[in-house]
């Protein structure tokens, strides 16, 4: 499989407050052949340049939304980005076929543990269930929705080693996406991409 052009769109409104997200983003920036963009740094006043964002999308094959899981969704600016950039006639609707065939996934940090995202946990729904709005967005745009990369319990990562492991995993998944080794065929059945990296051959 030929190499895929990967784009990481990072959204955290107060990145100084999140060690894990800072580290993960730095890891993404270190992977060769991966484009990264810090949305809050690019658009501090929320004035998203829709045309240039669309052009950026066209230049990539895999889109990664990296963000903390705020109220079971993305921070405001990433939502704004979706509302404005995924336009009718571009991403969906009549003649809206420009994103067809591309892949989309979320790279998420959560406060809660993996167990909390289950019928028995206090979040009741699973991550995949909670991410269905993103999944359906991808479907409507004719994109392939891949399982998410999830770092659970980010706030409890007191040991640097844990954070480093997560960052390392993230870099390996991004590299796998770039090299075409992480696809629906290889990873489609996973709950999250970083559940078992060896199974993916990473």
């Amino acid at each position, binding site marked *: 499989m030929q190499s895929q052009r990967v784009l990481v769109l990072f959204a955290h409104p*107060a990145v100084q407050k999140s060690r894990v997200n800072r580290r993960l983003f730095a890891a993404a920036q270190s992977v060769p052949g991966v484009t990264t963009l810090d949305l809050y*740094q690019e658009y*501090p006043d929320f004035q998203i340049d829709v045309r240039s964002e669309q052009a950026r999308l066209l230049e990539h094959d895999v889109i990664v939304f990296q963000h903390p899981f705020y109220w079971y969704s993305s921070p405001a600016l990433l939502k704004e980005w979706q509302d404005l950039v995924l336009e009718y006639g571009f991403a969906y609707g009549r003649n809206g076929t420009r994103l067809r065939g591309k892949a989309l996934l979320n790279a998420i940090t959560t406060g*809660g543990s993996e167990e909390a995202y289950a019928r028995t946990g206090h979040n009741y729904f699973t991550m995949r269930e909670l991410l269905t709005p993103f999944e359906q967005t991808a479907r409507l745009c004719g994109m392939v929705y891949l399982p998410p990369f999830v770092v659970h*319990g980010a*706030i409890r990562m007191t040991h640097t080693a844990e954070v480093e492991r997560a960052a390392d995993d993230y870099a390996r998944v991004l590299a796998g996406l770039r090299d075409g080794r992480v696809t629906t065929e290889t990873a489609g059945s996973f709950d999250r991409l970083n559940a078992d990296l060896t199974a993916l051959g990473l």
Partner: protein
Amino acid sequence: MHTDSMLFHAFVYLAAAVVSVPIAKRLGMGSVLGYLLAGVVIGPHVLGLVGQRSGDVMHFAEFGVVMMLFLVGLELQPSVLWRMRGHLFGLGGLQVAGTALAVMAIGLIAGLGSRMPLAIGLILAMSSTAFALQSLQERGKLATPGGSASFAVLLFQDLSVIPVLALLPFLAQTAVAAPSETQAAQPGWLHALLVIGAVCAVVAAGRYLLNPVFRLIAKTELRELFTAAALLLVVGVSLLMQLVGLSAALGAFVAGVVLANSEYRHELEADIEPFKGLLLGLFFISVGAAIDFGLFRSQPGLIAGLVVALVVVKFAVLLLLGRLFRLPAPDAVLFSFSLAQGGEFAFVLLSFAVNHQVLPTSVADPLVAVVALSMALTPLLFLVNERWVQPRFARVRGEQRPQDEVHSEDNPVIIAGFGRFGHVVGRLLRANHVGSTVLDLDAQHVDVMRRLGMKVFYGDATRLELLHAAGAAKAKIFVIAIDNEEKAVELAELVQKHFPHLKIYARAAGRVHAYEFQSRGVMSFYRETLGSSLDLGADVLTALGMPAHQSHRAALAFKRHDEASLRELAKLWEDDGAYFTKLRQDIEAFESMLETDAARTYGDSDRGWDPIPAGDESRG
């Protein structure tokens, strides 16, 4: 006291106006009727304060009509005039011809022959520009279909005076007189050439000469010099037109139209307006004083009958033509009422006719009285129309109102001051398709802005007349963006006083200036450097490594706190501010500002983004 002194006359006329017009207005009669009654009262038949001189005064005051036409011209873009051409020549031509023929027919039936009645008909076809336009303007009806049709006809009548003057001698009882001695020396083609040349000169001067000249004058920043120049312009044009035998009013009108697109338009309007008002008032007073009640007393039946006949015939012709030209019924009636009187030109034409043996004085003298009385009737006809005729239409049509055809731009925003600050405001509004009328006192500035295609007018916004001319009565928002701090506050007070409906948005130089606005109830003030200082500060924070969105929020939070504290401090300042010198105020303001800065706490508004305390896993 010598009753013939100029001061005494001025006193009488002014006192008459000042006393009678407010009373007339209060009684709902309009200013024109007030002036007329004042004239009757001070005239030879009641108080006898002004006698022989009222004729001279009337002659002098007729210049008010010239000024009025100049102002009407200023309001009229050439394109609007071009759209009026059908009414001007069709309606106007038929009105003059129709009235003349109707009078002639009556004369024929009465066995007076055809010549004299035709001459009388031509003379009586003229209507009074002064009475009709003033009454229409006062009621805001000039822009309605009926009003603009009236205006077109009046304009045509002005044009037709020249051919009528040429035609009258041929209608003489004894065909002796040579056609018009004044122009006998010139062959007709030369005269025509002169007329065309003069009009071209006015147009060319208006296009290419006047703007640079006014700019020079504006640079002297002497207000009275601008007024003098404006008057000079009107007087000069009138003089030129009289030289070539055209009506001065017509010339002034042409000059006005040529200048309708000039950036000095509002300033010219504001300068000429008071003179026009005074002179027209004087004119109406002198018409009132000149009404010959002696003749009326000796032959009351005849005079009254003739007045009624004149008004009825003119009204009938006008109404017929109005309907023929498809004016809606209420407009056709307004049109007919406003032009049913005799005009100023009738006086001129009557004396001309007597001189050329077209009419005997025994006919002309009663006609002068009839024309004057019919003029006096105009305001009453307007009252009749308003009180009893128009309400019927309204009832039939259910309050349907014709669309106003507005000549002046009806912009919702007026921006005073178009320098560094105001022009950004104007451009933002323009980019969002909001029209603004802009006033600026810097002639060079105005020039540059206009070259860039913006509607900018030269003028001192603290002049009430200029605010009126700029459409302050119809606008919604007034932006004060002028440099001069004291003038800005003065302007705010002026606008608050005279246009309380306008919402004021003011540029404040600094804190103390902002206090001044707040103490006057202007709450929408904007310190001119605050926005850019905060932008710069935020960028410095970002350059030092603070996440861009954080610096953005920090600047916004700072701004919100600062605005709140400013408004608090302004209240303190209001209490005892008057005791401090300006310098001390500045220092105090700065000190208290630093104190509140130190006491401020930021960052309590984004705790939602904090990681949840370890061990508590509620929420994703």
